């Protein structure tokens, strides 16, 4: 497999608010290899969106990346100058967001917004850039791209707007596409279309993908590997098959127990007890312990490190102390 395309080590981002410091991303390490589709899964508020923003260095005050490194194509993004980072963003490293209505500038034509992206990363003159934008629109499956290119966002449907956002992101053929809940704001039928589009684009352009989502169904269908996140930390890592067949971390297990699948009846659903933790004053020891049904006495005292259980499978849980060697947490 060689060097991963993206490798984040001990990434930590904090929000400095009036009520206290929120440890939104607390020592997250993850990799995305070439051509891979990796999922980052978790409940709302667990820090997955903040992780994505941190990878792109889009964190704004009162948030700040406080430590760690993000190696992308051999360079540490966190040590680049603003100008260098801007050359990377939208070019080799692109992002697609959740709600296409609010993420598009309502006063700018759709084509203009794509052309802007193209001009920033490719040395083309205006006419050629417009053609590149047209091509991008066609590639994301918009018929009559020649008309749509001059539309304003409010003239398009939700699904089309999301395609526009995707077109913007892939216009410069990125090596890695980060998709933050790209289908959450869309109708169920459109969701499937968009996900298939993303899969197709990945194949065509050999782009890797980091999919941020809370929808396990999407993960099962479209991703190769999974990171499970809880309260600002990665609690489990593994490939898609083993995560679903043999979930290791109690949180992952609880998550799977609470979601529907064809062979489960509704009565078998269990919700996870308790509330997501307060990230200003997180629980002592393992952050999941107040809601964990398998906890040991040790869990409330010491935070567990990341244990390697099998190649490519890790879990941050005291249950696996003997099973694997502890890696750096």
């Amino acid at each position, binding site marked *: 497999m060689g060097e991963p395309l993206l490798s984040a080590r001990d990434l930590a981002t904090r*929000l400095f*608010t*009036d*009520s*206290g410091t*929120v440890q*939104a991303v607390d020592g997250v390490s993850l990799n995305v290899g070439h051509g891979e589709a990796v999922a980052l899964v978790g409940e709302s*508020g667990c*820090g997955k*969106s*903040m992780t994505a923003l941190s990878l792109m260095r889009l964190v704004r005050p009162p*948030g700040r990346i406080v430590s760690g490194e993000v190696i992308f194509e051999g360079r540490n993004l966190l040590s680049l100058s603003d100008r260098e980072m801007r050359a990377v963003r939208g070019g080799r490293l692109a992002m697609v967001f959740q709600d296409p209505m609010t993420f598009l500038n309502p006063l700018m034509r759709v084509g203009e917004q794509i052309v802007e992206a193209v001009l920033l990363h490719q040395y083309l003159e205006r006419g050629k850039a417009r053609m590149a934008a047209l091509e991008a629109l066609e590639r994301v499956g918009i018929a009559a791209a020649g008309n749509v290119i001059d539309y304003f966002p409010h003239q398009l449907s939700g699904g089309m707007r999301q395609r526009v956002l995707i077109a913007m992101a892939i216009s410069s053929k990125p090596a890695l596409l980060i998709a933050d809940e790209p289908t959450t704001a869309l109708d169920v039928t459109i969701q499937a279309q968009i996900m298939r589009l993303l899969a197709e684009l990945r194949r065509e352009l050999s782009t890797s993908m980091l999919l941020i989502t809370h929808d396990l169904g999407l993960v099962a269908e479209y991703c190769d590997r999974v990171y499970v996140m809880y309260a600002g930390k990665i609690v489990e890592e593994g490939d898609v098959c083993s995560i679903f067949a043999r979930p290791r971390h109690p949180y992952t297990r609880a998550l799977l127990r609470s979601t529907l699948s064809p062979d489960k009846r509704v009565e078998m659903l269990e919700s996870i007890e308790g*509330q*997501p*933790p*307060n*990230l*200003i004053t997180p629980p002592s020891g393992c952050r999941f312990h107040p809601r964990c049904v398998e906890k040991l006495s040790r869990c409330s005292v010491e935070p567990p490190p990341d244990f390697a259980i099998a190649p490519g499978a890790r879990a941050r849980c005291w249950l696996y102390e003997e099973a694997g060697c502890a890696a750096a947490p």
Partner: protein
Amino acid sequence: MAATHVPAEPTWWRIFSRNRGSVVGALILGALFALAVLAPIFLRFEPSRINVGPSMSPPSLTHPMGTDELGRDVFSRATAGLRVSLTVGFGAATVSTLLGVLVGGLAGFFGRGTDAVLMRLTEVFQVIPRFFLAVLLVAFFGASILNILATIAVLSWPEIARLVRGEFLSLRSRQFVDAARVAGASRMSLIFVEILPNALGPVVVNATLMVGQAMLLEAGLSYLGLGDPTKASLGQMLQEAQQIMRSAWWTTAFPGLLIFLCVLSLNLVGDGLTDILNPRSRER
């Protein structure tokens, strides 16, 4: 990413006092009120008596704000004018608020016919320049304190009515109103007990700012010569000062300063009230 604990609801005083500007504003306003109310007790000179001192003399111990060309004590006249300004300002704001709340509430609650009429009315008032209509009304009906107050009130209430109506419209479809209705509350009770208290927040803020606007309007009218000739008014003093201010800067500086401080303090207080009464703007 967000914390899930909820901080305790701060009391209104706490919020208000956090905004230092509002506290300063409130203090200034209080001082001005005190000045206006108590001054007659301590005054040595009558506001309209001429030749109580040398004509056009600068501020001194006997005449803290100097004298004008007719030898009148500026301080006495200014405090009298301050009384007029405060009366007109608060009076007009109160009347127009009451009127506006009444009409706006009814329109917002009953909707349909009353609402359509009200909206037309407020639109008209929005387009027609208020100041010039005020000039016209006062010129035609005579310049007395009452007329001026009434004119300002009549020109201001549509704005409040519109605001109240908006609040009523958004509030009347909220669940707590349905709950009260289901529990058997009468229509009047729904209006006055359930909805109105919640709608009052922005109204109070608006009313505070309106006092300042009314004062500026009154001062402007007096400056142009449409003030009540029987009473000293700050705007009128500025008009009189126009000719003599070259040699007597105090005849314009002090009266104008009083108007300025009134409006400034009201705006400061209004800003502070916004923080309390408009929870949406509280996030900083």
